[in-house]
């Protein structure tokens, strides 16, 4: 694993604009960054990223199978009791999951460590699956990189295949919140994949979803919604007015309700409890667990429910404590052993390993100037070259 400085394609911004990648620059700061790329060997990808991602997914399913029948666990995860049956039913009925991103700390050597699982509303799918792919083909064509490079990235075709297999009846509605370019871009891309699988699709804003007198969700044409993809966290759904109506609405939702157990940081101590010592896991405990005091080598405190690095506190022996402000943390938090991200030329690098229909199928890399990855962290492309 190396970071290699390379030339940018001189026309990448105009390409981004015409290909629907409007959020390539966020608040004037670069988000897509192709002034460098990361190089991996095939063995690093297959042995250290791809295979472990599949193993982690399997362990996560074991956690869900245990949690849905354990009220104490559901309570610890701060999942409202009114949704327990709903979550349980979605697991028992095997409602299918679509996609998720494991965030891993990996420096090219040794086992990748799971930092967290974005199992509900992951973003950066488009830039990983499509724009990064286009970059690779063009960078080889233009001799910016050697022509025999590959990339761990079959996300696009795996997404299309997944939609073919989901068995979605009737139209698929897809919703994002108004006014968030990055979210809308991600959902538009997911719509693109669904359409290529032959599904009839219908994009709308989450705020525009209606409800009829029978408690069914409706779209802008007053048609009922039977399957809804929502880029909106389950924990927020469960506190919304319509969210309370969802279990009786008859609509299937992607990601399904049981994913709320995995997108919760409480997953990390549950994994450690069931699979303590697994090479891809870090020691983790609920904050009120006395064993949390044993993490003397530094730790990271994460709220059960938080996004994009908000409300993260990093306590490092002999160094100042880092923290990021934010609106989360009321539900409680977990403590995870400190495993700092590797630093490449001053950049703190995290690997996002993508699973589509539970199949590991791609990777995206984010860099930040600080040890905590945030929504403003830059996205860099990668290559596989032995």
């Amino acid at each position, binding site marked *: 694993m190396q970071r290699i400085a390379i030339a940018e394609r001189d026309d990448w911004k105009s390409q981004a604009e015409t290909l629907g990648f409007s959020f390539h620059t966020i608040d004037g700061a670069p988000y897509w960054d192709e002034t460098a790329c990361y190089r991996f060997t095939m063995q690093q990808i297959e042995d250290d990223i791809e295979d472990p991602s599949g193993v982690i997914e399997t362990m996560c399913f074991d956690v869900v199978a245990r949690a849905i029948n354990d009220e104490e666990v559901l309570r610890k995860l701060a999942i409202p009791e009114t949704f327990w049956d709903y979550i349980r039913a979605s697991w028992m009925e095997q409602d299918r999951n679509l996609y998720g991103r494991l965030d891993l700390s990996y420096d090219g050597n040794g086992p990748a460590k799971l930092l967290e699982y974005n199992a509900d509303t992951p973003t950066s799918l488009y830039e990983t699956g499509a724009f990064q792919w286009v970059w690779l083909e063009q960078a080889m064509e233009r001799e910016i990189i050697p022509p*025999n490079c*590959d990339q761990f990235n079959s996300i696009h075709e795996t997404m299309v295949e997944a939609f073919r297999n989901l068995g979605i009846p009737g139209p698929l509605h897809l919703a994002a919140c108004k006014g968030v370019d990055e979210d809308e871009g991600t959902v538009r891309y997911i719509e693109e994949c669904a359409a290529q699988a032959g599904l009839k699709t219908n994009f709308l804003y989450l705020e525009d979803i209606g409800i009829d007198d029978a408690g069914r969700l409706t779209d802008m044409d007053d048609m009922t919604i039977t399957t809804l993809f929502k880029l909106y966290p389950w924990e927020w759904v469960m506190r919304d007015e319509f969210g309370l109506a969802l279990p009786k609405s008859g609509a299937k939702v992607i990601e399904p309700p049981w994913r709320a157990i995995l997108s919760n940081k409480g997953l990390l101590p549950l994994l450690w409890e069931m699979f303590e010592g697994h090479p891809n896991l870090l020691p983790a405990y609920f904050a009120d667990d006395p064993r949390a005091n044993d993490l003397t080598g530094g730790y990271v405190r994460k709220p059960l429910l938080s996004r994009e690095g908000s409300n993260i506190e990093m306590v490092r022996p002999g160094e100042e404590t880092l923290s990021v402000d934010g609106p989360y943390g009321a539900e409680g938090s977990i403590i995870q052993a400190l495993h700092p991200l590797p630093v490449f030329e001053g950049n703190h690098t995290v690997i996002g390993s993508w699973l589509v229909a539970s199949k590991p199928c791609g990777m995206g890399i984010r860099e930040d100037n600080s040890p905590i990855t945030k929504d403003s962290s830059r996205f860099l492309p990668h290559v596989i070259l032995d």
Partner: protein
Amino acid sequence: MKRSKAVALSLMGTSALLLQACDDPQIEAKVYRDIQNCITTGELSQEQCIDIHKDALAAHLKTAPKYRSREDCYADFGYEKCQQPQQRQQASGGSGNVWMPLLMGFMASRALDGVSGGGRRGAPLYRSSDDPNTLRTSRNYPVGKSYGTQTKLPTWATQPTRTRTRTLSRGGFGARSSGWGG
């Protein structure tokens, strides 16, 4: 291949995109140590072997990775595994201080697409210091570990690069100097 074979974007943005991943082998080739090795395998006539070797030598001068210092070349190809082209062979405008790897073999290649009429071309082969058991083309494409190997490879693997100076500054095989390479 660990990436999608194609990515289509037809709904997003203002222009549709359909790109195919491009890595299908389009050349078949047989690997030889030298003219004698070529002749003794018996598949090509003596005359063909000499012609193809000559072709490979010409391509060697044209497409071999080139370095401004002997040390840089040694770093990529090994101690005393580099040469300076003879004065009369140098391309016009050459700086006069150019180092390139020794020719370690050649390939008789034939396009599979039929466009080129099925004629055989010669192409030079090298061995890099970090992976000396593998024969590679001037574009660092591995073709096998032993002479006599029959192989398939993509068209670009033997083509000269279009932007030579830029590629060379990174070193075509240069794991140490650049991060790329074998």
